[in-house]
């Protein structure tokens, strides 16, 4: 767990250094999105009952989502539309709505961190996070 947090932290730190060129922004957001995915994956398995409930992993996933979403919000400069990216052009056409989804992911993750106290509250609350992931991927991620 600690190793994962450090990795996430390093990623966020490197992302904070504003990317000068488009390729950096694309790479930085891919790294963060992957970190969010890696932290969320075991929790999604818990949700499906494939693995036993572990509060530590839930909190780690929520932390990755909250901090990741904050960092991602600045990683879509105009010059990063094209390249090796699954980011849809719609992101730049609907920037406000797109960024609102990251804001929602982060705010909900912080609220969930406090509200999730046991397995029952986890099963009730965590699916909303996945719903936000899906809402954004449906509209703004182009499958290559």
């Amino acid at each position: 767990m600690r190793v994962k947090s450090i990795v996430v932290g390093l990623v966020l730190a490197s992302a904070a250094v504003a990317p000068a060129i488009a390729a950096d922004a694309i790479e930085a957001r891919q790294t963060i999105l992957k970190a969010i995915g890696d932290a969320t994956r075991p929790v999604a398995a818990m949700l499906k009952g494939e693995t036993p409930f572990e509060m530590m992993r839930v909190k780690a996933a929520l932390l990755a989502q909250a901090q990741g979403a904050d960092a991602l919000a600045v990683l879509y400069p105009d010059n990063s539309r094209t390249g090796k990216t699954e980011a849809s052009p719609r992101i730049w056409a609907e920037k406000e709505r797109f960024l609102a989804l990251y804001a929602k992911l982060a705010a909900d993750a912080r609220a969930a961190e406090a509200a999730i106290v046991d397995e029952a509250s986890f099963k009730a609350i965590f699916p909303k996070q996945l719903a936000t992931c899906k809402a954004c991927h449906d509209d703004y991620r182009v499958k290559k």
Partner: protein
Amino acid sequence: MSEATATTKVPAWDLPTRVFKWALVACVAVGWASDKLGGGSPDVHVMNGRIMLVLVMFRILWGFVGGSTARFSSFVASPGTSIAYGLALLKGREGHYLGHNPLGGWMVVALLLLCGAMGLTGLFNADTDRMIIEGPLVKMVSDATISLAHKLHHKIFDLLLIAIVLHVAAVVFHAVVKKERLVPAMVTGKKPAGPYVDAAKATPGAVGLALACLVAALAIVWLGIRAAGG
């Protein structure tokens, strides 16, 4: 209007056919809504997909043993008949049908195929990261197959939307231009008596037989998915 209410009505659609029809409408609506709005409860979408397959399977069985107007043999017309009907329709000289007219019959076939294809591709579909939603047979196939199912599921939905728009447009056309109100007929099961080309009145299918078809459809879908490893 007073003329219409005075007209005697004849049976056109039996109860199972009507219940199926509106259940399918609801199933398509829930399928869309549970994907678009229900990202937090993927189970609803997956269960809805199974129900979609059951409905389509039921309708296929009912198309062989159901009421006279529900049978494929009564409404699936040859291409020649369908084209002739379409041309006559353009000239306003088409025959009137108690059941599906030749073009409407093909729309039924198209809608059933598209709904069935939605259900089938959904079995193998999952979100890109396979974290949020997974069809019951995702574990049995390769990533490439899931990817293909994903693409098809979306493309087929677009086709289904087009078919639904055409279908509704045709119903509106019949109501407004032809003064034939098809929606009330699909609700009450009755149409005004008239010189119909296909039959003067319909023979309903037995409700018991419909229940047997439903049980068979449930068994085929549930056991089929289980046999396939889901």
